[in-house]
């Protein structure tokens, strides 16, 4: 159990920090409301009215999200390589460069064919 003490301690500290921040800002912070502040928060973008039933998203979101997932997940192959980096020597380096080049080929395709353009 004592093995997990640091984790528990970290959890307590994190919770404490979060509670402290919220409480302190509520207590100390100035309270001047305007229309923008009372709106629902949407990453800084002006919120758009939602139609009933959620409505439909532009397909652009899908493309961006999917491209992100594919390129993001490739990174996990870097972990085992990083762990055994010393023993794999030059061979590992060369193979990893080849791997990343292959990923870049896909990236080049996406870029050239307009997959990264929003409009």
């Amino acid at each position, binding site marked *: 159990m004592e093995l997990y003490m640091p984790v528990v301690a970290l959890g307590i500290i994190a919770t404490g920090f979060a509670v402290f921040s919220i409480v302190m800002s509520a207590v100390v912070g100035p309270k001047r409301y305007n229309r923008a502040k009372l709106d629902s928060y949407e990453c800084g973008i002006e919120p758009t009215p939602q139609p009933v039933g959620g409505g439909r998203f532009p397909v652009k979101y899908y493309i961006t999200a999917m491209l992100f997932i594919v390129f993001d997940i490739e990174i996990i192959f870097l972990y085992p390589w990083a*762990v055994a980096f010393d*023993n794999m020597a030059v*061979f590992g380096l060369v193979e990893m460069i080849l791997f990343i080049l292959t990923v870049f*080929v896909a990236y080049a*395709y996406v870029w050239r064919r307009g997959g990264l353009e929003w409009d």
Partner: protein
Amino acid sequence: MSSAAVLAAEFQAPSFEYSLLSPLLVIFGVAITGVLVEAFAPRGSRYLLQAVLAVLGVVGALVATVIVGLNLVSRGGGTAHGSIAAEGAIAVDGPSIFIWGTVLVLSLVSVLLFAERRLEGGVLSFAGQAAALPGTEAEREASTRGLEHTEVFPLMMFAVGGMMLFPASNDLLTMFVALEVLSLPLYLLCGLARRRRLLSQEAALKYFMLGAFSSGFFIYGIALVYGYAGSMNFAAISAAVSGRAGGEGLLLGGIALLAVGMMFKVGAAPFHAWTPDVYQGAPTAVTAFMAACTKVAAFGALLRLFYVAFGGARWDWTPMVWVIAILTMVVGSVLALSQTDVKRMLAYSSIAHAGFLLTGFVGAQQVADVGIGEITSLQAVLFYLVTYGFTTVAAFAVVTVVRDAGGEATHLSRWSGLGKESPVVAGVFAVLLLGMAGIPLTSGFTGKWAVFTTALAGGAWPLVVTAVLFSVVAAFFYVRVIVLMYFSDPVGEGPTVATPSILTTIVIAVGFAATLALGVVPGPVLDLAAAAGEFIR
């Protein structure tokens, strides 16, 4: 230091036999180059670049395969020869080389079918712009601007790469990755038809859903077998199976789940449900490629997995395969009788063929049992795959040229009277159908003969009797189409036979020639299959 760190410290830089794996590297290299071409070449020049690149790539890989094949070293004293490459992940042995050669030749033929542009009036038979919705302004615009997806060539090359890796994998993980590499491009290709796009998209959805489902079974099977044997490597699994170190449930469950995944890919009943829908909905060029090459690759992998890794548990999986084989033959032959669409009928015929192939597979006549001049079941199945592949590609190629105003006229009623309209096409199709039925002097007969005799020698006589019986049933529906083509009057305007470019003509000619040649002089290819020897362990 944790146990993982200790294990990591033991890692050595692996050795990688580049020359042995050159066929695979060429194909994957061509596929990646294809993606770059797609990214940087101007639109107008892409078609020619991609088609030439694909053809050169496949030919290059074929040459590399022959060179590798000629330099295989004998291993273990028996007929097995070859070496294990890439730290035990890939087995480059006789059967691998034979399957690589078969897949590559069939892919070469299929590339030509993919590249056919004349039948659609100067564009590929794939969707001009897959993202444009069917029946919208965007689609019409894509069509008038003559857009085409030349991505089909790199996609196909990736699939070919997967098909080569699949039967050559020597551990479960490589096999799983290869399975996905071959499947994912095929899911996409299925949805890219230019005509009848709703059908095509539906085919892609069904193929994808069921394919993903079956790969879920496959990977859970891998997990269980790994849990049993403690290794993914076939040799280690084989040793564990022979030793029977306990944990019987894990092993049997794993074998069953892996079999589900495999049987799905080969299209065996009761996992065949996707086959007719996908074969019908997919663009016919893709169907031809998929029907021929996937089956070759999947049977190669099935044989390696069950003979090499689970050879010691043969008595556990044999009854299961018996049931599947009989069911597959029954379903394939009987349901084909009631089909009204020629692509669907050929799909059921391919299911029936999977059943015949399973008969050979389960007969399991091993090296130790064969006399002089006899072949093992592995070699018989390999030979059958060659005969089946050529006939199938050519049959689907014929389907692409029989057309009406709406594209391919796949409904069987449209085929009546084809013999009067175009004696050549009808004649060729008739021979191909007879080949599938297994009439003597065609490749279907020699293939069935090889498979059934080995199964008989392996003691599976009830299975062989069933197989022969259902060959007769199957022959009925092949002959029905021939009767329809020659002895029925055309309905309405009747079918028209479009004149294809030289590409499709080559495909049909090659398939037709192979069907006859392998039926009359099967010797050379049979010798080649026999020379493939056995799997290395």
